[in-house]
């Protein structure tokens, strides 16, 4: 068992939705075999697109939550770029209601601005009253410094609220489809420069200082942005950051295939950026690994690169990519990796029921995985309704065996139970 209090060999006894004992020689009515496995607090994903309402042919709350549970997650934060967007209490309530019936806790992020168009503030207080803690226009950047300042000031009056920025200046990145650099120049695909991310991260660190409000940077992807966040934290600014698995496992060279399964915003970047993201995850500059799970139906990706929508699946491969690319090579220890996947993000989103520690009295949200099992990603076998994984055919290490949500075994031996 591994949580923030260290690691030990133990049984976990669960009754109802709670952990009632942790120790050796415990017995219960039903036992889940965890031999050879790591038992950890359930994983928490700050960044998923569940596509409901509006794009149910790509994913629903139900299918996305099932994919999450199979990936070891017990809580996800659903991004607000639905149709209609989650800038309205009724939409948020509907997403939460669908989530309550699913096999993962679904928290809704609220939009920062109405229609996510960066102009007028969304009803942040009303959304907060429904339990929303993460506010973001994700998919779109809040380009106006004035609007971002107002959002930060307003959010600082809402306990636990955090404003999360998709840091890409549209005036620099808007016309682009991949990272601007050697490969975009060769391929003739308009680029999104790293500077589009860096300028917004720098600006919003300054605004965090001005307002004293918390800023969370979504999917950090450039070496410079990692360094900016590192400096901001060293200066004591209230900033946090996440990184997506594809930004520490893939580079822009993949776009040479012209296959839009590799198209994502912010884009896949260079080897140096990948190394910097890994470094940021290792030293804690980056607090969380978040998938940016973005399902698209197959037809949407069967288009030329420039016409296909950005985004890739992530929920069912995140833990294995973390184990394969970070833990196995020694960049992160197992406890560090689990901090980025579980209690780190749980703290950012204020999810008291998630992220452990696993001890008597805590809510029984658990992820049980075999850290050494090797498996090959098969896009056709994913629980997500969509198939747009860039890892099809890739052999990974680390596989979820069981997931326990509020005391209920929602995944047993790698199979979803509902």
């Amino acid at each position, binding site marked *: 068992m591994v949580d923030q209090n260290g690691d030990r060999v133990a049984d976990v006894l669960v009754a109802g939705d709670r952990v009632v004992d942790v120790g050796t020689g415990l017995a219960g009515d039903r036992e889940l075999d965890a031999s050879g496995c790591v038992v950890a607090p359930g994983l928490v994903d700050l960044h998923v697109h569940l596509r409901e309402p509006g794009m149910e042919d790509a994913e629903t709350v139900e299918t996305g939550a099932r994919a999450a549970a199979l990936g070891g997650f017990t809580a996800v934060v659903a991004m607000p770029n639905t149709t209609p967007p989650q800038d309205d209490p009724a939409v948020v309530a509907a997403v939460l209601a669908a989530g309550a019936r699913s096999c993962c806790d679904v928290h809704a992020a609220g939009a920062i601005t109405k229609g996510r168009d960066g102009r007028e503030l969304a009803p942040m207080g009303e959304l907060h009253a429904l339990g929303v803690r993460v506010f973001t226009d994700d998919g779109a950047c809040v380009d106006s410094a004035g609007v971002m300042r107002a959002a930060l000031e307003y959010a600082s009056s809402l306990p636990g609220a955090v404003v999360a920025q998709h840091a890409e200046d549209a005036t620099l990145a808007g016309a682009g489809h991949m990272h601007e650099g050697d490969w975009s*120049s*060769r391929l*003739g695909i308009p680029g999104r420069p790293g500077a589009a991310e860096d300028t917004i991260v720098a600006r919003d660190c300054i605004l965090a200082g001005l307002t004293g409000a918390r800023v969370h940077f979504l999917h950090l992807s450039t070496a410079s942005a990692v360094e900016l966040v590192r400096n901001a934290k060293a200066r004591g600014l209230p900033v946090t950051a996440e990184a997506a698995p594809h930004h520490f496992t893939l580079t822009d060279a993949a776009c040479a295939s012209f296959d839009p399964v590799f198209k994502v915003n912010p884009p896949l970047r260079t080897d140096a950026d990948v190394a910097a993201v890994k470094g940021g995850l290792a030293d804690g500059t980056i607090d969380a690994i978040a998938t940016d799970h973005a399902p698209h139906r197959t037809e949407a990706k069967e288009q*030329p690169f420039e016409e296909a929508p950005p985004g890739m699946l992530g929920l069912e491969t995140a833990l294995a990519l973390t184990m394969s690319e970070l833990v196995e090579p020694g960049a992160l220890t197992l406890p560090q990796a689990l901090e980025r996947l579980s209690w780190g993000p749980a703290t950012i989103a204020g999810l008291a029921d998630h992220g452990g520690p696993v001890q008597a009295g805590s809510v029984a949200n658990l992820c049980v995985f075999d850290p050494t099992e090797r498996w090959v990603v098969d896009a056709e076998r994913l629980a997500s309704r969509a198939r747009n994984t860039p890892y099809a055919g890739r052999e990974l290490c680390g596989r979820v065996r069981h997931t326990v949500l509020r005391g209920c075994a929602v995944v047993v031996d790698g199979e979803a139970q509902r």
Partner: protein
Amino acid sequence: MKHLLSIDDLGRAGIIELCDLAASFLEVTQREIPKVPALRGRTVASVFYEDSTRTRLSFETAAKRLSADTMSFGVSASSVKKGESLRDTVQTIEALGADALVVRHRCAGAPHRVAGWVDAAVVNAGDGRHEHPTQALLDVFTLRRHRGPDLDGAHVGIVGDVRNSRVARSTTKALAALGAKVTLVAPPTMLPESLDGWPAATSCSLDAVLPDVDVVYLLRIQHERQDATVFPSLREYTTRFGLTVERATHLRDEVLVMHAGPMNRGVEIAPEVAETPRSVITEQVGNGVAVRMAVLYRILGSGAPVA
């Protein structure tokens, strides 16, 4: 050779082989009946998702001079307007009997995607800002006819919106493969973001480059879709980067002027300069048919020598 998607598919030997083949087809196009039965019974479909007159006519003429049947698909009169996907469209055209698809698309890599969806051969007739390999072939073919087969040491200045030009991407690679030296000339806003993969030097001064070049290759300024922040005005562009009469008078006699067309007379090239003997612009167009015959024959033909 199954497809022609990029000039990278060919290499130096492949480029020379196609140029030599094109030379024999150029002779065919100059006959009284400019037609050979080389591709009788084969069908070439032009699939153009972007407006084009010269490239499309050039390919269709090439196909007809090889006695291939042709079919033609253009966006304006097509099912694309009814929402059919690229994949469905090209698979439909293949099902109609096309042996080769000549694809023009506004997006980089579209022909590469098509090649993955059909069994037919695919020829890239220009994809977004990426490549235009048959233009590059006709450019080096034209230069070889004037300078001899060896382009070693020839200095070509390519002038204009290089960053957004598929012609520049393909032609630079083809010229470099044959040993020519390429200098890309443009304001920094029109030069590639990175020179990685570009076997070329750059300059932001046409006047500094002109005394040293053997060929001036002008790119069309696409002012109809030009972002206003790329250069201040057409007048300023012409002043700094246009091949004006004044600039042309200082060129050595043997310096050639090329253009991928269609020209903006008075913008990147003065009308008088386009008409001088050093201009091989019209010749490029004629050579384009022979080069495309060579490409289609190489892809669809028996491989036997051309009679």
